[in-house]
């Protein structure tokens, strides 16, 4: 073998040239990081090695800026079987089963090429789930886009195009692979115009005995590459410009990966076949995600404390003359890495061949702790595994209070109230706003029922799937109101978790744990670091109160355009457990004559207008002091509601969020007509109404008090309900006169259910067409 400093067959810069030209800067590696790498190696890294360091030490792979913050999250709990650090987190749900879940962002690819960006976002998170040995059973999407009306958008056509293509990408991938898309949320704000957010959460089910780890253990065992071939797609993402690479015939391809859901479907089945039927020969399995082959293999070795020797000539390639650098950094989709007991490689190949897939041995586990790559008879990289993984830099970046906060806090949020002179009119406008309006136009294109487990499809507070062979079910939701966090990162962080928990509880389940996608701007901006730190503190506090540890997650930084960052948007994905399918509850009123109650904290409905939809609608902007939330108080309300649901006293429950109690009442009355196909249709839904009386001023109908619920109770059980939930306020009744009659101290609201529903249901389709 020749020396590590020999360059590959193509004309790559020498180690000295890498040093002198500082080409690593193009890969977002700093001079200090380069020097750190030199120090660890005791020599100059060659071109390939420098590339490996750059990508493994990128924020995306090693979370160098966010790790100190992530360490503050509570991650343990009595049911937690696997916390952060593996492909996905795992929580015990009894009966020998566990739920596996994680969320991931695909913001940047989706901004550039929305269809493939969103599609491969789905593909990537699915692989994280089945790499743990679980069968993916549900997908949820949390999406943020710019505004859809010309008055509030710079390029409204582009925004519509992004919505259309992101949704088409999710639909295309999820429907084809046959995992139901059961929920999520979509919100709109001008701050997301240049930088839409596409966060995908996947939930899987597993028998506890089948849990896998991504470990390359046992010297002499084989490293096998399975799935799609490796191409030049996705190398170094968008930071890599074509001019800097390849003078000859080889041109750099697009940084955006292309998904093949058919290939992934075969990959899921083949991997689960190996895990379930040939586990004795499988040592470890990991997805090739961000930074592809290098990241997956180095992490597998790191977790097992071993080394690896890979022969890159054996990597299946879809393009000619690929360099080691390109092969290692490619983010081609639908690939997995397996560690297989020596001597059993052919068995693995046979299994994958039956699914029409490649499975090739590309290297061996070693005991020297080194990461060694061979290509065309030369050693092209020779690096301690730890240097790439455990010893990656970690930064404690400075933070300062954002300048915006003082100005925002000086705003008088109660001014919004002055604009509300005709509550019925305000009400209809809110129902038509894209963030509040029905998202049926979107989820109508997702197969939400495949796998025949979906009990509650999209459109209620949380989606619910049953767990076969048990009496239990799982509730799941995604949540985050970036506007609140923009106004107050810490309180906003608490609210994000509280709202997720409210959704889970309203569906009749006990919150189990969360995953997150932390979407922020550049961490080099101390104000962004402040947002990140303080919202993480709020999230942590709420997770402790609701006993929902953080079991997995993802950080997406640099979400900015021309130095304009998105709202700090930590998406919370929460899963809850229902002990019995009898407890499944939706937001829909079911029966005329039912008593309607408001459950809220000790303070009732407060003038919470800061960051509210009604403030945005009536004043055109948001501001004010965000009122703190009493998490313990909210927890008490949740516990009381759960007790009542389990006692069979509740016909519907819906949490009060965007648009306030008026919108919550209306959404409860809308139900779903026979065309919508939610599987929870009520022939009466078209004529249901509500007749309630709230002892509040008109504007408070739209105040977004966190931790309040609208609940309907059979009249025969009203006394039992009031005994069980003494804090509940009786508001009135569900009616069959087809009218929404909401009396207040002022003029109140009186609108026909169907005309309000029409506005709410058709708005998004109108805005998008």
């Amino acid at each position: 073998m020749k020396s590590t400093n020999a360059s590959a067959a193509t004309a790559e810069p020498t180690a000295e040239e890498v040093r002198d030209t500082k080409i690593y800067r193009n890969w977002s590696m700093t001079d200090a990081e380069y020097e750190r790498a030199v120090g660890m190696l005791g020599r100059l890294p060659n071109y390939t090695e420098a590339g490996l360091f750059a990508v493994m030490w990128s924020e995306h792979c090693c979370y160098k800026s966010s790790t100190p913050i992530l360490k503050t999250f509570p991650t343990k709990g009595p049911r937690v079987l696997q916390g952060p650090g593996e492909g996905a987190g795992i929580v015990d749900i009894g009966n020998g089963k566990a739920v596996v879940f994680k969320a991931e962002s695909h913001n940047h690819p989706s901004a550039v090429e929305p269809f493939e960006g969103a599609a491969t976002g789905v593909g990537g998170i699915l692989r994280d789930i089945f790499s743990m040995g679980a069968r993916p059973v549900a997908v949820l999407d949390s999406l943020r886009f710019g505004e859809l009306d010309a008055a509030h958008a710079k390029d409204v056509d582009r925004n519509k195009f992004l919505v259309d293509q992101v949704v088409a990408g999710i639909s295309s991938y999820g429907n084809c692979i046959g995992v139901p898309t059961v929920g999520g949320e979509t919100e709109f704000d001008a701050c997301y115009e240049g930088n839409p957010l596409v966060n995908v959460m996947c939930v899987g089910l597993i028998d506890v005995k089948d849990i896998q780890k991504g470990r390359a253990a046992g010297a002499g065992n084989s490293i096998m590459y399975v799935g799609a071939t490796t191409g030049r797609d996705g190398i170094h993402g968008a930071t890599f410009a074509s001019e800097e690479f390849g003078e000859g015939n080889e041109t750099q391809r697009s940084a955006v990966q292309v998904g093949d859901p058919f290939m992934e479907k075969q990959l899921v089945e083949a991997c689960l076949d190996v895990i379930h039927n040939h586990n004795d020969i499988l040592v470890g399995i990991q997805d090739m995600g961000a930074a592809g082959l290098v990241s997956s293999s180095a992490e597998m070795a790191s977790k097992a404390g071993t080394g690896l020797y890979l022969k890159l000539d054996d990597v299946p390639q879809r393009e000619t003359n690929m360099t080691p650098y390109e092969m290692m950094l490619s983010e081609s989709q639908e690939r997995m890495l397996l560690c297989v007991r020596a001597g059993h490689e052919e068995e693995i190949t046979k299994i994958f061949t039956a699914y029409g897939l490649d499975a090739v041995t590309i290297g061996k586990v070693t005991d020297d702790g080194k990461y060694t790559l061979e290509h065309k008879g030369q050693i092209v990289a020779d690096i301690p595994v730890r240097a790439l993984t455990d010893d990656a830099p970690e930064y404690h970046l400075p933070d300062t209070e954002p300048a915006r906060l003082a100005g925002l806090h000086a705003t008088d949020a109660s001014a919004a109230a002055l604009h509300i002179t005709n509550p019925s009119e305000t009400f209809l406008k809110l129902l038509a706003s894209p963030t509040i309006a029905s998202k049926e136009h979107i989820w109508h294109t997702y197969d939400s029922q495949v796998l025949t487990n979906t009990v509650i499809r999209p459109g209620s507070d949380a989606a619910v799937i049953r767990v076969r062979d048990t009496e239990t079910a799982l509730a799941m939701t995604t949540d985050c109101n970036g506007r609140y966090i923009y106004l107050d990162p810490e309180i906003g962080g608490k609210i994000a978790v509280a709202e997720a928990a409210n959704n889970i509880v309203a569906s009749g389940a006990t919150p189990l744990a969360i995953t997150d996608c932390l979407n922020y701007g550049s961490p080099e901006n101390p104000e962004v670091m402040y947002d990140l730190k303080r919202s993480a503190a709020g999230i942590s506090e709420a997770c402790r109160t609701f006993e929902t540890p953080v079991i997995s997650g993802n950080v997406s930084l640099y979400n900015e355009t021309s130095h304009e960052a998105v709202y700090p948007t930590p998406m919370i994905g929460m899963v809850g457990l229902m002990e019995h399918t009898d407890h499944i509850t939706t937001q829909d009123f079911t029966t005329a004559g039912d008593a309607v109650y408001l459950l809220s904290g000790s303070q009732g409905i407060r003038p919470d207008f800061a960051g509210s939809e009604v403030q945005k609608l009536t004043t055109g902007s948001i501001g004010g002091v965000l009122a703190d939330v009493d998490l313990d108080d909210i927890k008490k309300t949740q516990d009381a509601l759960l007790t009542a649901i389990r006692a069979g006293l509740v016909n519907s429950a819906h949490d009060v969020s965007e648009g306030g109690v008026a919108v919550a009442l209306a959404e409860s009355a809308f139900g779903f007509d026979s065309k919508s196909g939610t599987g929870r249709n009520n022939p009466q839904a078209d004529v249901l109404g509500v007749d309630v009386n709230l002892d509040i001023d008109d504007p408070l109908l739209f105040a977004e008090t966190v931790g309040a619920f609208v609940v309907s109770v059979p009249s025969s059980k009203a006394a039992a309900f009031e005994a069980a939930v003494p804090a509940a306020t009786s508001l009135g009744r569900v009616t069959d006169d087809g009218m929404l009659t909401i009396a207040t101290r002022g003029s109140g609201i009186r609108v026909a259910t169907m005309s309000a529903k029409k506005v709410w249901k058709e708005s998004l389709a109108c805005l998008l067409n």
Partner: protein
Amino acid sequence: MSVSSPRFAVIVFPGSNCDKDLLWGIKNVAGMDAEFVRHDATSLDGFDAVLIPGGFSYGDYLRCGAIARFSPVMEEVRRFAEEGKPVFGTCNGFQILCEAGLLPGVLLRNTSLRFVCETADVEVANASTRFTSEYADGQQLRLPVAHAEGRYTVTDEELADLKANGQIAFRYAKGHNPNGSVDDIAGVTNKAGNVLGMMPHPERAVEKLLGSDDGLPFFTSLINSLQ
């Protein structure tokens, strides 16, 4: 399983994704003897009925069902059908049966040009087939649909034949056609009545917990026809 229980084959093509749902429905819910049969199998010996699931066989690349029809098992399915034994295809299974020429017509993109997932209002158009005997003529059903290419299309001549022969088994309720199918057709049989294809998914409607069990009589009809 007792010897007398009919045996069902659920065909699995690469990319089938409702295969497990069909097996669950016929085996766990309806209690029949059933197993998966791979796309490359060359025999259906010992089976009494064939079920072709929904999904995206071969990724639906080229055209829905266009590649699957060339799978080795389809030779056997054809022979099976020619022997008069029952063959059922839902969604992608319907598309495959049309591509294979075992059923008349083709399935084009929905008129909306969008994937549609909803619970459709479906009407039993002919309750005298071996797949629909447990229903009544004109009975209203709620059956899930989930497809992008479900617009059933035949020539005027073929449509007249379908009507004359009682081959139209299911229609979407008036005003509730989700895909633009001609004459609101949701499911058809071959002339002999032993092959049926439909876009709605009866296997997604066999448990009340999941919203509807209107699909259960479909399977009991088929089971009864075998006993």
